[in-house]
């Protein structure tokens, strides 16, 4: 007669628990009567049943199941308290072909890690979460958990949980049921063979959902903890059936498994160097200047320090970026530094640009400014003290009233914002008008003829780089630039 072992050890378990320190290598570390062992067994059987042991990854929590990795022969990581669903997210996103199980107790999931758990559920991560609810913190010696019942005495609720100060047991499944993404939510218990059989069906479904890439599944297991609850096995089952179930009713809370389609595996990551470079880099311009090209005007012999200030929406920051970009394409060292944060949100915008043949020590300009562009009175007043006495000031004549200035200062007022709005029909190209003004001002202040023509070219290249794909934008900005130059001449 052949002998068939019907309820033997799943091959997903290690034969000997060698990872367990100490002499006991055949038994689990869980206390007598604990539900973890039953749940471990159901999970091991389900993983074996669906043939996914090789790619199953298990996230071990902090709590009694912290040592789950003693038993299961599949990928495992023991993670910070409460963070299992976040770690599971990382694993599942990194390796979409993995089957990721997050296993958590009530403190780990519903207290310290409730946010990570709910957010993973809300994102609909392709993971299955097993939540062991035994109404107390087992590992640390029976303290109050989010699932402790009203009036229940624990080591940190020695007078019984008081709902007025400690609230009510957290209905995890019902809370998750308020979210759209989760596919399957069920609460089960382990009190009777029939309940264990139902739990087994739920566990199998959770594992099947993983295999079929259906999304987020949650199985809450109301589990006995006789040692910490100081009860016998019979008493703890009665406690679960008669008391816990009042707060944690068993059954399917949601099952969208049938109507949910399997998710396709995402497109493979692009890793080949040539492919990566093709996507990240732009093609080199054919007409770009040679690496040894140098503008010859003497104004470039020293650092050129430019401050641009105005109002958000006038293109102040992008004017600075464009200037820096033009400098870079002409082989200068350049830096661009914005004011950022609340100052920006208050409506004002400001940036510093330095163009230099040498290394630029600090990108922040508070003093020694060679050239300043101001389109608001506030910007003018704020940065004027930093402008050199013989510096150049370009300002918007309709918005700025000049105070008394040093005689050597060269000032140029142009109604740039108005030109952009009325002549060109868009305040958005005010910065290109200002760039045109700047070109004319530099021409009047020592930029030699060759460099004047080069400035025009550099601007055209920068505009094309920025707006090349936007129909009409290049033309409009070039028109604005010309309008700026013309406005200066007038």
């Amino acid at each position, binding site marked *: 007669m052949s002998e068939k072992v019907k309820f033997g050890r799943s091959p997903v378990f*290690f034969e000997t628990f060698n990872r367990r*320190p100490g002499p006991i290598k055949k038994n689990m570390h869980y206390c007598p009567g604990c539900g973890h062992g039953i749940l471990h067994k159901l999970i091991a059987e389900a993983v074996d049943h669906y043939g996914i042991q090789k*790619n*199953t*990854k298990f996230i071990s929590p902090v709590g009694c199941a912290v040592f789950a*990795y003693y038993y*299961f022969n599949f*990928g*495992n*990581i*023991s*993670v*910070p308290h409460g*963070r299992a669903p*976040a*770690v599971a*997210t*990382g*694993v*599942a*996103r*990194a*390796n979409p072909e*993995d089957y990721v199980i997050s296993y958590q107790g009530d403190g780990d999931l519903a207290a310290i890690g409730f*946010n*990570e758990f709910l*957010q993973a559920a809300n994102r609909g991560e392709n993971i299955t979460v097993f939540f062991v609810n035994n109404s107390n913190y087992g590992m640390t010696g029976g303290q109050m958990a989010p699932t402790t019942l009203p009036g229940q005495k624990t080591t940190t609720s020695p007078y019984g949980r008081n709902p007025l100060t400690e609230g009510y047991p957290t209905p995890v499944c019902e809370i998750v049921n308020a979210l759209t993404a989760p596919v399957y939510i069920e609460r089960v218990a382990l009190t009777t063979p029939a309940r264990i059989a139902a739990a087994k069906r739920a566990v199998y479904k959770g594992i099947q959902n993983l295999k079929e890439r259906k999304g987020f599944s949650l199985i809450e297991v109301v589990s006995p903890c006789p040692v910490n609850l100081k009860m016998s096995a019979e008493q703890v089952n009665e406690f679960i059936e008669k008391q816990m179930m009042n707060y944690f009713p068993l059954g399917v809370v949601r099952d969208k498994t049938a109507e949910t389609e399997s998710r396709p595996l*995402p*497109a493979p*990551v*692009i*890793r*080949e*160097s040539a492919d*990566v*470079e093709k*996507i*990240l*880099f*732009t*093609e*080199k311009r054919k007409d*770009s200047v040679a690496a040894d090209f140098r503008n010859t005007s003497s104004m470039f012999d020293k650092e050129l320090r430019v401050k641009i200030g105005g109002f958000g929406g006038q293109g102040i920051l992008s004017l600075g*970026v464009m200037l820096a970009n033009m400098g*870079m394409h002409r082989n200068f*060292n*350049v*830096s*661009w*530094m*914005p004011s*950022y*944060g*609340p100052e920006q949100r208050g409506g004002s915008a400001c940036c510093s640009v330095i163009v230099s043949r040498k290394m*630029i*020590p*600090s*990108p*922040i300009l508070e*003093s020694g400014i060679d050239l300043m562009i101001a389109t608001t009175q506030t910007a003018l007043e704020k940065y004027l003290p930093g402008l050199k006495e013989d510096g150049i000031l370009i300002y918007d004549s309709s918005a700025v009233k000049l105070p008394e200035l040093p005689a050597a200062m060269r000032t140029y007022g142009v109604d740039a914002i108005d030109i952009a709005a009325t002549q060109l029909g868009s305040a958005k190209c005010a910065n290109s008008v200002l760039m045109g003004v700047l070109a004319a001002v530099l021409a009047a202040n020592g930029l030699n003829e060759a460099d004047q023509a080069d400035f025009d070219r550099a601007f055209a290249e920068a505009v094309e780089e920025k707006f090349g794909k936007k129909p009409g934008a290049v033309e409009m900005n070039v028109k604005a630039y010309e309008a700026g130059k013309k406005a200066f001449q007038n």
Partner: protein
Amino acid sequence: MAYQKRMLLKGNEAAVYGALLAGCDCYFGYPITPASEIAQSAALLFPKLNRTFVQAESEIGAINMVIGCVAAGRRSMTASSGLGISLKQEAISYLAAYEMPAVIVDVMRGGPGLGNIAPEQADYFQVVKGGGHGSYRCLVFTPNSVQEMCDMTFQAFTMAEKYRMPAYVLTDGVIGQMMESVELPAAVKYDYDPEWKMGNIINGEANCISSIYMEPNDLEALNKKLQAKYKLIEEVEQSVEEFYVDDAEIVMVAYGISSRVAQGALEQLRAEGIKVGLIRPKMVFPFPRKSLNSAVERGVKKFLCVELSAGQLIEDVRLAIECKRPVELCNRMGGNLLTCDDVCAAVRNMI
């Protein structure tokens, strides 16, 4: 194909390019000024390469997602600023104990508390000394330009994997927010598949990644192993840039934006005939002890730490030279920046 590899980028954006070219698969992050452009450009660029960007629910969520991704055998990174880094410290301690590589960019802002979003350098202690629990260290790169934000983020992946430990790119709001031209490095061919990843079959068993060592002797052994690794790193990986140290009587020590301001001051002071030099750590763990001690041996009389904190770097300078020379502090706090004039005045005061 000839590519335009020179780009005008923010420091924050350059870090993302460095990561992608180094073969980073997944970015997990949470927005915070002045580091948000890292998350923003990651959100834009990672999907173009079929790579993963996740805006995590929190700083804690983000770093734990990094743990999962790295445990699965992929390259991963996150970024934040001061207070966000404080929140990540528990998980970074786990990374150190797991002996797993990860890259964390810290774009420092003003503290303590909510502080402000202006640049500071006051995360030095929490980043360099191991801000979480336990005796661990992280590699700490200190870029002072946009180019280095790219290069050092790239390098951080390589070195983190070489030594199997977390690596920081520690910078400040100025370097993160400023734009400069960057010469982008070539993309590496991605062939990373670490033996230690979770689930890899080792001796017939699926590998488990854990930081639990219930037996004190076992945990002590891990600690000794880590310390031996850190000692080796201190011997072979010190990285520094020196300016005019050979004949200097006063040597400034500065990293990040402060080192650029100091470099500006240096030119000015040298023009005045003052014998001053600059040591700029490119990494602060390992700390450049050799460079500092060799400066002591070469006759430097005094050191000046230039930093945007109440004096954090200065402690390591004093320790490194075992207080053989006076070390003074030139600093600003709260988001105020030092100017070249401030630094020049501090040096002149030391003469």
